[in-house]
């Protein structure tokens, strides 16, 4: 072997952190010149790479001053082109620092019209972040009417149709009249492609949605053969979650209004209005898309994709929102599985921008519903509104109801008639103000061994004002925030789009005392074992995470004993909304083994000394820790986050 070829190979192996080919290595061992080259090259690397770095000057202030000067130049229109204003602008440019300092407000106005996001350097961001949720609730409560038109663009729906455009018209009249029409303005390759034209309209009591059935994009354009479908509901109870008003597009109540604070990103102008940009993940932003996704075919988004929402600074209506793909390998794998092309995290793949917006009341005829042939009758019967406060409230004598509703007025009252399927009595009182609403359902003669209206793993909460305890669940993508009360006067379920604190406040004003649910509801026995809610008992060392994503808290626990196996489940959720309906579930069990793999997508993951398995489809990480089986599920989280939680497990969880 020639020395120059061997030395070239040594050099390349060093830089690529690769092993030397065997023939080169053999040559190096026997050739003193190449051995010297090898040793010398490594010594040079050591000296070059590990030298003590010279001190670096801080250039940030100087650089940013230049950047700001340049930005001001750009905004002031300074440029080489001849212009009668040039002399004046030159004077202004020369004095831009003074102008900037003296006329911040004027220039801020100029900056806002520049089309780019501008930092909120002159605004208290922290205060704004915690103020926005309150402002949203205030805006929602005061909103009687709304009309808007949004221009929508969507990328990468299918390979054949990589770009689609829509126009969505929305109308709202408080408290429950809502209409959205989505007109598909895409140029499709041929007439066989279904247009995603959608419609949803409700006057509160009747509800109807129509559009093409959802269809896997890979099957298109062949999929929808029967034309648009229509779903109609009559005798709808107030604020029925099964036939919901997708009103988060008007004021985002589900997540943003219920948060303690939001992530403020910057300021801008949209449709000529001053706007604040806030940022959230797609998993938290799904309610913003529900006015589109109730029917039809749409592209998928990854839970960690970033959604930036521009809120009108005056009315707090969303003016624009954009979805930016998340970065990282897991997102790329997901995109491949979904048949999506490679997507840059810097380019939006979905945009909705308000073309027009007003609070002018739409005509009542806009909400007329003409139910189609297939109608579902929900069977709710309206009753006259009770007059005056309910019994138990000062001066009250009517049916039991909250004594304080925070400014919301009673607007509907009714019941579901008893039937063999519903042998109990169920009455509903609905309160509303603008977009804000609250319902109180009372059930008497309840015959089921579980809390009414509440799914598994509710959080037990102490009611304000020593009103006993209640059982709380955050909002999901299909259910509002809700609280169940088990009382001597029946079961109560309070549901609302208001934040959790307002829900607890209203529920605590119902003149009843929340009792602990009966032991037999909490403990379920069957021939194979027993499940007990609210306890964490095991004969092995339970662990708990020392890291959880921001906002997550332990809300529920359950022990299941079956034969030789004991399993303990901890549930972690955020208090305002957990749109996947799950949150984070940590399960630990003795007497169980890791099941055989059942999907080619499963990945092996090292968890310290243990080997784990990640199932992307179920967002499930599982591993054996000695003789203990542990698993973590988090439908909204990527592998990196779940692994971080797993690696943070420590000590005893009691």
């Amino acid at each position, binding site marked *: 072997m020639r020395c120059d070829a061997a*030395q*070239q190979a040594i*050099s*390349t192996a060093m*830089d*690529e952190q690769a092993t030397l080919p065997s023939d080169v290595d053999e040559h190096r061992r026997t050739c003193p010149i190449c051995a*010297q*080259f090898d040793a*010398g*090259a490594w*010594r*040079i*690397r050591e*000296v*070059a*790479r590990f*030298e*003590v*770095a*010279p001190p*670096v*000057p*801080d*250039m*940030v202030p*100087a*650089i*940013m001053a*230049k*950047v*700001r000067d*340049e*930005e001001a130049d750009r905004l002031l229109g300074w440029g080489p082109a001849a212009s009668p204003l040039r002399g004046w602008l030159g004077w202004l440019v020369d004095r831009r620092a003074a102008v900037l300092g003296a006329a911040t407000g004027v220039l801020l106005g100029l900056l806002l019209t*520049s*089309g*780019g*996001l*501008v*930092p*909120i*350097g002159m605004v208290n961001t922290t205060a704004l972040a915690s103020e926005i949720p309150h402002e949203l609730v205030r805006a929602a409560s005061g909103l009687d009417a709304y009309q808007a038109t949004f221009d929508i663009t969507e990328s990468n729906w299918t390979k054949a149709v990589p770009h689609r455009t829509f126009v969505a018209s929305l109308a709202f009249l408080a408290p429950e009249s809502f209409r959205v029409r989505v007109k598909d303005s895409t140029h499709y390759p041929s007439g066989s492609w279904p247009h995603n034209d959608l419609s949803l309209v409700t006057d509160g009591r009747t509800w109807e949605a129509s559009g093409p059935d959802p269809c896997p994009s890979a099957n298109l354009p062949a999929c929808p053969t029967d034309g648009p479908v229509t779903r109609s509901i009559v005798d709808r109870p107030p604020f029925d979650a099964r036939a919901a008003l997708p009103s988060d597009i008007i004021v985002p109540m589900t997540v943003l209004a219920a948060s303690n604070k939001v992530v403020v*990103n*910057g300021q801008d102008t949209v449709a000529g209005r001053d706007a604040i940009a806030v*940022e959230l993940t797609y998993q938290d932003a799904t309610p913003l898309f529900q006015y589109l996704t109730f029917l039809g075919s749409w592209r998928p988004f990854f839970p960690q994709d*970033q959604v930036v929402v521009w809120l009108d600074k005056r009315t707090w209506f969303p003016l624009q929102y954009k979805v*930016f793909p*998340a*970065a990282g390998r897991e997102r790329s794998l997901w995109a491949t599985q979904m048949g999506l092309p490679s997507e*840059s*995290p*810097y*380019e939006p793949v979905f945009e909705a921008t308000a073309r027009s917006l007003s609070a002018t009341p739409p005509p009542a005829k806009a909400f007329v519903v003409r139910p189609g042939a297939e109608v579902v009758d929900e069977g709710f019967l309206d009753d006259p509104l009770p007059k005056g406060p309910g019994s138990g409230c000062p001066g009250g004598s009517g049916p039991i109801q909250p004594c304080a509703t925070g400014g919301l007025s009673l607007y509907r009252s009714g019941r579901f008639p008893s039937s063999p399927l519903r042998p109990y009595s169920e009455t509903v009182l609905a309160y509303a103000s603008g977009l804000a609403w609250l319902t109180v359902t009372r059930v008497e003669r309840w015959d089921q061994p579980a809390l009414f209206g509440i799914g598994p793993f509710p959080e037990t909460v102490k009611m304000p004002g020593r009103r006993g305890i209640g059982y709380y669940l955050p909002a999901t993508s299909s259910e509002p925030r809700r609280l169940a009360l088990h009382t001597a006067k029946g079961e109560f379920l309070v549901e609302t789009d208001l934040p959790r604190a307002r829900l607890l406040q209203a529920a605590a004003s119902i003149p009843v005392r929340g009792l602990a649910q009966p032991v037999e509801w909490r403990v379920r026995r069957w021939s194979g074992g027993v499940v007990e809610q609210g306890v964490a008992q095991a004969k092995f060392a339970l662990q708990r995470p020392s890291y959880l994503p921001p906002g997550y808290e332990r809300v529920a626990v359950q022990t299941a004993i079956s034969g030789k196996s004991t399993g303990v489940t901890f549930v972690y959720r955020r208090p305002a909304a957990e749109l996947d309906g799950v949150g984070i579930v940590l399960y630990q069990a003795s007497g169980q083994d890791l099941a055989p793999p059942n999907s080619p997508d499963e990945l092996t993951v090292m968890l310290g000394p243990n080997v784990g398995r990640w199932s992307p489809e179920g967002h499930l990480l599982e591993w054996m820790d000695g003789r203990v089986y542990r698993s973590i599920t988090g439908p909204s989280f990527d592998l990196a986050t779940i692994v971080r939680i797993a690696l943070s497990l420590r000590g005893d969880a009691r």
Partner: protein
Amino acid sequence: MREPEPETIRRARAGDLRAFESLVRDYQADVWRFAYHLTHNRALAEDVTQDAFLRAYRGLQSYRGQAKFTSWLLRIVRNCAIDAYRKTRRETPVADQPEPAPRGEHSSTASGAEERARIHDAIRRLPDSLREPFVVIEVLGFTYQETSVILGVRVGTVKSRMHRARAALMLALSDKQEESAGEM
């Protein structure tokens, strides 16, 4: 060099000056070091750094993530350094005196410090075409692929130049050793 969060870049691209400032803060040291290796002059490296960040701010709109952000940024630095070199060539460039050995060096043996000084001096004397890939790969730790983006040459050229840089350094160091042996 660690890559910034995509969100920071996106915000900076959208005109968020705070996001851009955080990029400047995070990368000013690496940018300055690269500029210093290219110019051998602290003041000139400072000018190059400022100019490079200003150009990066103007050019962010065109950055689409097709290359790593750090590669893209260092390519700008290199272009700024070339411009600065062309300008200073007309204005009589003045290289700094070699940096005095940092304090920690005093604890090393005298021969170790001398060897380091010799190596640094040899690196400084490399022609630009060899010193650039050497600094990018050996000092800043980039790969061949990333270096090819930064320098705007093919990967094969980077490999070849890197080898030639090493060979030239070995030769220079062996000559020096002979010189110092002859002086004794």
